[in-house]
């Protein structure tokens, strides 16, 4: 990197490595990917922490996300403003939380946020319905969707309030065999 223009100072890189699960190289690569999304918006030089946000519409065009039925929710969840405009920090944060090495607890928290469409800290049946429709692209009939929602809530709802609190969700997820392997994005 010696002759190239520096993108980050060493402290920044160190800080990012402290705050994420990425290596130095990965952080730099992330920056590259971020910049790719909006070359005219994102400067090469991040040493002074420019306040730049890339809108959701651009973020979801990333190959890692573009096939994901929950891409909008993912981006919204990780954006600080809640509308999907990601600063580079949010961007790094997103992929850090979703990377392979991040712990189950962290992933569970974010998974819950992603599936909590209306952000009321509960996954209610409406959230489940939305999840299902995104997942199956509307291929299930409404009756089937209702049935699945009811069953899912019935299974995981420990306290009988017919919606899933975080603890319900966590309990359920902690037993899911392939949550960890499925809930991550490599970049």
């Amino acid at each position, binding site marked *: 990197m010696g002759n190239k223009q520096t993108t980050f100072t060493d402290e920044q890189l160190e*800080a990012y490595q*402290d*705050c*994420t699960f990425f*290596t130095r*190289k990965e952080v730099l690569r992330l920056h590259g990917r971020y910049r790719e999304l909006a070359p005219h918006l994102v400067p090469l030089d991040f040493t002074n922490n420019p306040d730049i946000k890339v809108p959701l519409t651009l973020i979801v065009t990333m*190959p*890692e996300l*573009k*096939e*994901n039925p*929950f891409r909008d929710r993912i981006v919204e969840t990780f954006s600080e403003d809640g509308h999907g405009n990601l*600063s580079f*920090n*949010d961007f790094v*944060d997103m992929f*850090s939380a*979703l990377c392979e090495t991040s*712990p189950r*607890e*962290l992933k569970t*928290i974010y998974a819950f946020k992603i*599936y909590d469409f209306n952000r009321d800290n509960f996954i209610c049946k409406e959230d*489940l319905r939305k*999840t*299902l429709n995104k*997942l*199956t692209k509307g291929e*299930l009939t409404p009756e*089937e969707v209702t*049935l*699945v929602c009811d*069953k*899912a809530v019935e*299974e*995981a709802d*420990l*306290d*009988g*309030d017919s919606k899933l*609190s*975080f*603890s319900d969700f*966590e*309990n*359920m*997820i*902690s*037993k*899911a*065999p*392939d*949550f*960890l*392997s*499925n*809930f*991550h*994005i*490599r970049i």
Partner: protein
Amino acid sequence: MSTVSEPLVGSSRSLSAAKRHKSIRKNSRRIYSAYQDHQQGSSDDEDKEDERVDSNDPEEMFQNIQYQKEIIANIRTRPWPMRRKLKVLKQAREIVLKYEGRLTRTRGYQTAGADLLKKLSRVLYNIVVLFIPWEVRIKKIESHFGSGVASYFIFLRWLFGINIVLTIMTGAFIVLPELLAGAPFGTTRSKTIPKEHLASAQDLDTIWSLGGYLQYSVLFYGYYGRVRKIGSAGYRLPLAYFLVGMAVFAYSFIILLRKMAKNSRLSLASASDENFTFCWRVFCAWDYLIGNPEAAESKGAAIVNNIREAIVEEQEKKKDTSLAVLISLRILANILVLLSLAGSIYIIYFVVDRSQKLEQEKPELTLWEKNEVSVVVSLITMIAPSAFELVAQLEMYHPRTSLRFQLARVLVLYLGNLYSLIIALLDKVNSMSSAVPVNPGNWSDSSSFLATISQPEADSLSTLVSDISTSEHRNSAIATIAMVLDVTNSGRSSSGTISNQTALFEKNTRSQQEQCWETYVGQEMLKLSIIDMIFTVASILLIDFIRGLVVRYLSDCCCWDLESKFPEYGEFKIAENVLHLIYNQGMIWMGAFFSPCLPAFNVLKLIGLMYLRSWAVLTCNVPHQQVFRASRSNNFYLAMLLFMLFLCMLPTIFAIVRYRPSQHCGPFSGQEKIYDIISETVASDFPLWFSKVMSYVTSPVVVLPALLLLFMLIYYLQAIARSLKFTNNQLRMQLQTERTDDKKKVFQMAAARLQAPEAAGDKKPDQQESDVTSQEASIHTPSPRRNGSVTNFQSPVRRGNSIRTIAQSASRTDLSRGSVAGSVRSPAVTVLPKHRLEHIPNRPPPFLGGPSSTCRSKSYHHMAYNPPARYSDNIHSDPLYRKTIRPIHPVEAAGIITAQSYGGRRGHTTRYVIVNEHEPRKKLLRSATRIPRHYLMEESAEILELYPRNIKRYTPRAAHYHPHPHRPHPSQQHLSEEEEEEVEEGKSRRRMSLGKAHRPRSLSDLHQPPHFYIGDRVESHMSVAKDSHAARGKYGAQEEDEEEDGEGEMDWGDLESRSGFQANVRAADPLLVRTRRHIHSPGRHYQSPARTRHVESYVKPKTRPKLETPLTESDSASLASSSDQQNSSTDQYIQVIHNKERYLKSDAKQGKLAKKKSKTSFDVNVTESNDLVSSNV
């Protein structure tokens, strides 16, 4: 949780310990419940708070720094936005930097060193990551096909890693030393190609069948010299050979088991039988890695199928397909599979046998004949799985089941192949090794050969000598062996071992080449591996690539759609491919001992496979429809690999143990058994004592007990595992019931809140239920308090201790304990509803949910409850007051008052309730009273300064907790008398009190004071006051004295100014102060409050009536107290009476201070209530 344990290591100073405790809680809270926004806020505050810590106490500073470091270390696992993380990180770093210098130098150095180490490790990690092979390639595949397909490649890479290590082991310790220091090629007989083969040694087909030069190379066992020490350094090659051979297995086992343990740790809970079919299918179905539209589409379709399947299964699948047909089909299928398995095994055995015969009969073998064994084996391994798949379609199993069947069958097939091969080989070896001893001619031959060979003289001499000695040895042994062999191998002229040398010479020379059965086995394994590789490549090219090409380019000119109908694109069958890898690795393990270069070859093979496969997958494969669950299957693969390793190790071990090593080749030639090398080395090269020790250790005396010990250990560990599982289950059950209870209560509370008057009635059953539900509920509830409440609890406890010492009486404590047990539950119940009402603080606990939280809560409870309980028994009002007081300190006096009032209500609620009920006269309904209270609250707010509600709330809560336990139990237990009289009333009162306590909490604080202001409504408030007064009440005169306005005012002032206990107590409320004073004073008067109480309680029933007469207010109080006498309730009643008196006094004072008013109002209320009670009675 690791973060939690860290801070525990450190100094034991109470200060720092407390702080650490705090930080622990913070951390855990952050990690587990930080996702709630308000908590984030609070943790923010904590951070600032930590910053503020600026003391000069090095220990504290050190703690602070430790804490900051913890933050730095764990910040990445916090669910904060990056901006915040960066900020916190920066702050933490600054603090660490700032304070670290102030610490002692050694600590500074330590930390500097740690920093450096951390940086280094990070750099190292950054570098290491660069060298992880195929990372990008795998990621690319992952993003195209998802984690399922990628798991194959990750598995392949992992195997590659293992093989690298194996290669290094064999290369460094066997191959290299032999090449560098061993006798060069052609110097010894075992390293020389026989003359008659020399001509054809370089022919392609000879090389191809691993004969010729390859046979006499480091590739195989036979090449290695038997010289004990080679080179100038005296490297013990034979020993190394043996040890490395064993180490290969040991290493494989260890690495496999470790990986499996790690995997199972990752999927910790998957072992549990809980099944969230639908949830998993909804929340965990999507593979976030998928980035390829095709893969996404097929994944989506698979998910839909999956969900539909689950629905169908859920809707009671009534399989109408005739069972008879199905069963017969399945039986047929299984028969077919078994037949094909048996057939494949027979074919392999037959081929091996035939090749053996051919070798003996024909001098020249064709290429086919030389390779037919491996070709046949490879063909079977290729074709049979497809056949199984066809057969599986007959069975009409659920796809997942059929996949399992398929895997099991393929595994059995592979194992059968390998085993029949190795058994056939060993069979051959058997005949070969039995033929060896028949040739004494060879012996002399070889020894003479050795002698003539140019070698360092000393060496040759020594070898000669040893040879001769061994040969002599041999002869005797040979004779005996020959006898045995006679029976079976009579044709081989074993009888004339010594005499028939010349006759057998021809045969001997021929058999010499084959004598080296180890080389032969190694050759076969290597050949098999090579052929297998060729077939894999061919199948990839043919089945995948060519097919893909055909489908892609010929689909236009074909009458049906090639892409979606018949040939389609090749599917990437993960499970079968993984099985093939396992099979391949099995071959390596099986042959590694006989062919040290096999791992090295496998490394090359795996590299090639990696590139070819990844290319094929990306260009011409579509992902398998039935993706085997990745993470679960990971351990499944590993388990199969482990199984394979074990089974592959067996033949090798068997051969090592059972067969005599070849006489003329290999490092162990001339030994009776291969493992003799160990005992030989021990005997000759170790000191005498060592061999003695070894002989002891290997004797049954040691081995048997050791085995026994192992068994016992296994049994013990298993028992532990079982009990852990059991507790696990129990905890889960507990969690579940807790949650349901919790929720129920919340709902009830919510309902109660909405319908205040009606709720009162409802709550009562709830509470009772809660009592029944018991500890679980209580446990739960405590957890919510943690933050604010904990401090409160602690403070009361301390005070309680002091108080106890002062006032405890044995009988009291006993009673209190008895009641405590019961009471704890009840308080918990009450607490729950409160929490719910409070919403905010309560929420977090559910997240903590885990057993840990419950544990904490329990401990807290006990801590907090017990003391208060005792107190309450001793001084019912005291604990409450204290608690309330504490929080109050910061709060204004008014707040304190309110808090006190809360405590009073709760503690004495029942009694107060009574009062309240009486009050209803004025208000008619409790609800009505409540409403007025609310109004009052507002008024009070106006009159009194508004106090931070939070604080008030906290205090009341704490108070509630403590009092509740006491109330219900004492009331229930002791109420009997009163209850009998006023059972109905009492219940209703309780309800009322509970309801009040719950509802008002936030408001109630305010309400009560206002109540005080308003004489009529004050009654309810009075009740609170009464609680406080309860202790006092007994001694009306004292109380009255204390109640004096001047004192009350003093207390107020004290409250604000003083922070101490006394100050607190006094400050708590004027009322409280009074009560305290009363309490104290009575205590003083009677020496101990407990005594006084007892006395009171005992006396009260008697005295109360008396008191009543003297005191108008006291009359009612005495009545009430009579029923409660045993309990503090009596005290309370008495207090009430006092209050009345006070009230009278305070009436005059009311004009001065609202508080005074409240007191007075209390008194009034009390009087009223008392009157009412009395009337009731």
